[in-house]
């Protein structure tokens, strides 16, 4: 990767890192945290779904595993929060490998892959809701212990910085996918798996590496979620809401682009905040507007926001370049 490739990412990260120090209100700071967590989950989804073309409806399986591992290792085994978060990310990747191994080996693609991931996430949700060590249906309340070792910052601006660092790593990973040999193989598998295989790409290995990376990033989002909100239950961890948020952000922002998930998360969360003011006292009206806006965005920006004309040309050129590398 050349310096020019990295420049946009560095600028965006610098802006994000500077934001909390511009005197934001608590509400805006909190909004930033939620948005970055969703963006991180979306960046994870995008590795597999965007670059790899394997649409998962079940990224909750990874988000939840990261979150539960981070919480349980601290609460039940007394681990340090950083170690617990690291282990959560690792476990998330393992779960990704396991699900990927089973489904890719069975040759599942498209809707079939989407449905099997959805089913896995649901099984996790039901089990987590019934098991004892997850706190069952009552969920887990992490004790409040502000400090660097416990990863709970009394000053939330530092939590934003931490999130920006994670988003930065995920962004760089995505940029790397756009440039590297592995990324080219992944895109080749997305475009035509048979052709890629004929050219000597080990499709199964490529997809497995992609799902592990994807799951690890989304698991990190889960771990950070629980570190911030300090509350977790099966519906939050493994519920369909996060699977949907994780795929919505990249698709709305621009699927298969490094910045797509970030742009999408900001747009969707921002839209959600704005529509709040439209309900006029009748519950539901605001969400009707939100849903209608979602449909409108897709109708008018079918390639995602980054696919709109001002952004389009560069992206095409890049895809073409990636395709040549893949071949």
């Amino acid at each position: 990767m050349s310096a020019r490739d990295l420049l946009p990412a560095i600028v965006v990260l610098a802006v994000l890192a500077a934001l909390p120090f511009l005197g934001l209100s608590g509400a805006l700071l909190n909004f930033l945290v939620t948005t970055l967590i969703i963006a991180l989950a979306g960046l994870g989804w995008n590795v597999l779904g965007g670059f790899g073309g394997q649409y998962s409806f079940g990224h909750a399986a990874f988000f939840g595993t990261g979150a539960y591992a981070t919480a349980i290792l601290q609460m039940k085994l007394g681990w340090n929060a950083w170690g617990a978060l690291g282990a959560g990310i690792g476990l998330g990747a393992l779960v990704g490998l396991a699900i990927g191994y089973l489904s890719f080996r069975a040759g599942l693609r498209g809707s079939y892959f989407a449905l099997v991931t959805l089913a896995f996430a649901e099984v996790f949700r039901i089990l987590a809701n019934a098991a004892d060590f997850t706190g069952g249906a009552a969920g887990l309340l992490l004790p409040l212990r502000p400090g660097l070792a416990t990863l709970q910052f009394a000053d939330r601006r530092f939590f934003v910085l931490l999130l920006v660092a994670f988003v930065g790593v995920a962004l760089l990973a995505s940029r790397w996918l756009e440039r590297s040999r592995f990324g080219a193989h992944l895109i080749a598998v997305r475009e035509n798996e048979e052709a890629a295989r004929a050219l000597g790409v080990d499709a199964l290995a490529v997809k497995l590496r992609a799902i592990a990376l994807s799951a690890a990033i989304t698991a990190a989002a889960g771990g950070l979620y629980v570190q911030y909100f300090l509350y977790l239950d099966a519906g939050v961890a493994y519920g369909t809401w996060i699977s949907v948020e994780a795929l919505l952000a990249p698709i709305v922002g621009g699927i298969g682009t490094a910045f797509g998930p970030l742009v999408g998360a900001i747009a969707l969360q921002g839209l959600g905040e704005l529509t709040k003011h439209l309900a006029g006292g009748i519950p539901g009206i605001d969400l009707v507007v939100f849903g209608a806006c979602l449909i409108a965005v897709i109708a008018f920006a079918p390639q995602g926001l980054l696919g709109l004309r001002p952004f389009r040309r560069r992206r095409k050129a890049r895809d073409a370049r990636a395709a040549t590398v893949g071949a």
Partner: protein
Amino acid sequence: MTSILTPSRRAVLRTGLAATSLVAMPAILRAQGATVKLGIIQPVTGALANDGDLGKLGAELAVQDINAAGGLKSLGGAKLEIVFADSRSSPEVAAQETERLNGEGVAAIVGGFASGLCATASQAASRYDLPYLIDVGVADQLTQRGLKNTFRFSPSFGMVTKDALQRLVALNDAAGKPARTVVIVHEDGLFGSGLAKLLQAELPKLGFEILETVSHPTPARDMANVVLRIRSLQPDLVIPSNYYGEFVLLARTMLQQRVRPKGIYAILGGGASSLRFVKEFPQAAEGIMDCNHWPDPKNPLTAELRKRTEAAGRAFAYNVPMNYSAVRLMAEAIEKAGGPDRLKIIEALSTQSFTSGVMPYGQSKFVNGQNTSALPLNTQVQGGDVKVIAPPDFAQAKANFPFKA
């Protein structure tokens, strides 16, 4: 799967408020003397929308009454103004909305309804020393986290189950111990699962035999199998703990399959003390008992609240009187604190005692954040209405147990 997005999102606001209220400045808003802003947070969209709606109504009725009676008297008749927030049945939205309420300069927050929502909201409020009065988040831990700003008006889970069991034994003893065998039917969320675990530990000690514990998801599509099991086990007593829809399915299917145990004794049962259920299915509801949050039947305001709820087109349930009373209590705390100073309100809540509105709590007093005077009431559906049958101080009718139609 259609509901995927709903459990996460956004709030109802009075129209006209600038979209930029995210950056609203608290100090300026707070300085306006004539009104005191009170944050009300309830889930009015998403899975818990029905409960949130009723809770919101209760809070609104309380503010109406307080303002109509001359506002906060010790503050020169300052009026209360509700700033409402919808937590969308989702913990992270509850936190975001709490931040917004803080930004709008509320003096305190009342509400929450579910434990997960209360957990993140009260924690967000604690950053600003913003007093937070939980209406009915049952998880015991909510007030045991060392958050100085968090108080719970209603009885905790542990308190409810303790009373429920004591009164069950008393009921059975008074009738000559007709019931010995029990089947528990519970939803697999926090309410139901926690309760089942507790009952499994405690009931055998009290001389009951648990034949079976059946759990079901919410929403459940079907209760036929649950009832089939009950029919084959022939228990004396069925103890359900579930939300409204499932409770209705269960009661109707039991009636249809002609399963009539000696008693149906719900604990925090969603439908058992809902007047909608009683009105729509009088035959299925008759005789069902419930140990749940319920207002003092002897307080004349209770009947009035019920009328006003029905006038608003809603069926009366405990959320209305609970939030009505909680808001009145918070108003009293603001008066006792001498104004909307957050730390002074917290101080007042932790040290003084308060009237409890229409809830049967006498003088409410908070110890480590929990209202130690709070207690549930036992009700039974009799003659198409919900009647209180225990404890004796509040009873309107004698228990019909073992049940005779």
